[in-house]
């Protein structure tokens, strides 16, 4: 079977993000990047499915500029077989990204698309569900457990919903989004990193993928939450309650 994992390059999770002086962009100069942590869970899940079935191809796909090949390589170092990068240097909105990915899915014809539930930078959490909608495929979000049927025609997925744990069954092909508890990703190994350098990354021009429509969602400015004030000591429980109320925390 073929598994396709969507993957976004995001700033390292502990990095401090600053805003450019003009206030309209992020200053990412000294920031390290990594595979979006939720996508890493998706890659791990794909690899586990591959290992359990003994046979499967895991393809990782990212839409972005050249730098995101580093993250595709990281995923291949974990064990993904090959990568596709849709080249685009600049801003896209979620729907455009989803359309680009849908075009890749139509070419690759995977049996299952695995994604992270959210990209930890922009935090829209839109792309995979949009992708499912565009493809007309069933979807399962915030998955904490995925079980494929023997013949790979369907999957039973446990999803973390507000009310508890929801179990759904999906006919494949489908889109499934990984949540935190789905698994614990493996450490990209040293020989894996070496091997990954030799694995193929196919690059597609975004214009090859048909009309993605205009970008209708644009970010025009950033603001830091007021810099965290230095900690204070309060004198009594009463003052503590007051301070909590002021911060709208209770």
């Amino acid at each position, binding site marked *: 079977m073929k598994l396709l994992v969507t993957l976004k390059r995001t700033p390292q999770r502990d990095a401090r993000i600053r805003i450019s002086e003009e206030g309209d962009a992020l200053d990412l100069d000294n920031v390290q990047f990594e595979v979006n942590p939720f996508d890493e869970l998706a890659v791990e899940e794909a690899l586990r499915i591959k290992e359990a079935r003994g046979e499967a191809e895991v393809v990782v796909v990212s839409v972005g500029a050249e730098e995101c090949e580093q993250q595709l390589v990281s995923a291949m170092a974990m064990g993904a077989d090959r990568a596709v990068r849709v080249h685009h240097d600049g801003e896209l909105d979620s729907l455009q990204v989803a359309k680009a990915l849908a075009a890749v899915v139509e070419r690759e014809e995977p049996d299952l698309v695995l994604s992270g539930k959210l990209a930890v930078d922009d935090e829209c959490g839109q792309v995979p569900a949009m992708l499912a909608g565009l493809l007309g495929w069933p979807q399962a979000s915030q998955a904490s457990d995925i079980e494929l049927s023997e013949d790979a025609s369907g999957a039973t997925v446990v999803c973390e919903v507000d009310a508890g744990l929801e179990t759904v069954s999906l006919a494949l092909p489908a889109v499934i989004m990984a949540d935190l508890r789905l698994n614990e990703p*493996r*450490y990209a190994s040293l020989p894996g990193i*070496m091997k990954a350098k030799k694995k193929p990354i196919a690059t597609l021009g975004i214009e090859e993928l048909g009309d993605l429509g205009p970008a209708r969602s644009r970010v025009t400015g950033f603001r830091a939450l007021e810099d965290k004030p230095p900690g204070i000591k309060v004198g009594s429980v009463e003052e503590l309650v007051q301070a909590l109320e002021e911060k709208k925390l209770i």
Partner: protein
Amino acid sequence: MDKLNTIFAATVTREILWNVPTWARALMYILFLAAAVFCVLGIARRVRSWRRGREAGEAVSPGKAWRRLWRDAVLQVRIWRSGAAGLGHALVFWGFLVLFLGTCIVAVEDYGSWLLGREHLFFTGTFYLGVSFALEVFGIFFLLGLVLALSRRRSGERLRPLSRPVDLAVLWLFLVIGLSGFATEGLRIAAAGGGLESHPFERWSFVGWWLATGLQGLEVNVLTSLHLGFWVGHMVLSMVFIALIPYCKLRHIFFAPVNIALREDRKAGRYLGVSMEEVEETGRYGAAVASDFTRRQLMSFDACTECARCQTVCPATATGKPLSPMKVVLDIAGSSEGGESLHGDEISPDVLWACTSCGACVEECPVYIDQLGAIVDLRRHLVAEGEIRGSAQAALRSVAAAGNPWGMPREDRADWAEGLGVPTIDEVDSPELLFWIGCAGSYDRRSRKVTEAMVRILQAAGVRFAILGKGECCTGDPARRMGDEFTYNELAGANIESLSAATFERVLTTCPHCFNAIRNEYPDLGGNYDVVHHSEFIEELLASGRLVLEDGAAVRGTLHDPCYLARQNDVVEAPRSVLRSTGLDVVEPEQSGKEGFCCGAGGGRMWMEEDTGERINSERWSQLQETDPETVAVGCPFCMTMMTDARDAVDSPVEVKDIAELVAERLPGSPA
């Protein structure tokens, strides 16, 4: 001939193979041939298994090899350290060696005289008596050593859980060979040539003589047939022994000297690097199967005497973890002829992650096996398979991404220095010292106090020093100990770049892990620096009078030696001398100095939960409490955490302080 021969009526010698009929001689030659073939084939198989390993490391010069053999094989210097067991082994070894030489002399005499057509060669007169006497003495040594060894096993000494039935069998085999040898001799003296009177000089074989006098009452034909019986028994068992050597722990007889002579010279704190080019080429990283080890490593595993000394001192074994360094060595040796994976139920991830990299096993092994190196290679394989999870993986990711294992922001690394008047390296022109702070010293609020104390000391002594500031990052020690060479290389490379861009005389560290990495491991990557631990540096300051401490009340205390300082780097005296000058009355715990017991934090254990068996830090804490201290002094931020946590777990009022803090308290003008 010799004067003696005229004193005694007969020639002073004995008839070799007296009373041994042709069939028995034939049996001896056949068995010997068989045993020798068996033995040689066995050795060849082992040697072939080594040759499947990788080639790596530097050759040892012949002079050095001989010196090593003399010291540790012949004189058994390293073995002596372990008390009764050492004595036992030395006695057996010397006994065996001399008996073996004796047998060789007899053989040379026998074949030599036959070849040259002479009645005797040299096995007569004084020489004969001397050799006979020596054989008696060393035969007794041999037996005594065996009895000592057996009684130690009989008394079920606690630390030998892996002593197996074959070990006992081997000792009994030796004992029976030795006893039957003496019996054969006694019977010969009693029966040959018509009795004792015919060869009074045999008194020199005093054990045999003594036995023979006891056998006087028996008839000659009984004595001769008994003699033949014992001779055959002795001979057959000896052949069995020869045949067995390569197939059980006896093989150390051959391989231990080889390893002693040819082992690689490497401190336990300096790991064998991995070349990224090689990994790229072969896709091989770490040890999955025996042949992934170097030839020399495989050879060394065959030197194992199964003495279990390593496991006796291993803090993991001692606290009920599934790890035994001896078992790891034996498991690898056991699979070196096949190609099967080493990893499984026996060498499980739990076994491998239990190691604190304390190096006690390496320090203790009488035949210089590097168990820790083997464990690291096996860990590397786990890392290669991505089999490093949970908090250990999180720590590795954090060191790679944030430059410290707790994932604290890089920008905050020098926050501790605010307001302390500590310059960074670009603010001082070639300072005397570069003060390397380390991750704990930078971020851990408890260890920061140690850093601050050290700053006060440096300032009081007027030392010109500087820090790297935000440019410093983790030395890579945790990554390396956990088996991640890639991350280690990246971090070490970045640090070497920063260090080499600066000018200073020496590097000072308060963390023995940083100390070890920069001092012993950075040179392999091209970073050569003169590194001192703060205990050494303070000792120098005190000795040169640059630092003067105020007197104060004496305090009873003890020192917990950091493994990476004392054992791995031989810094034992400096912390003690500094502590004494602070007025601490240092009472030594039973295990201290190079024989210290680990706190449990090394080898990446600092970032892993310890949920099997006893906690190593608690075990160490109770050992230290036997000295009844008011203060426990430490010289390492990890030991600090471990000892503090162990103390708090038992709610004890004993203070845990770093050497630098105790010194800073005695700086003129500090509040006591």
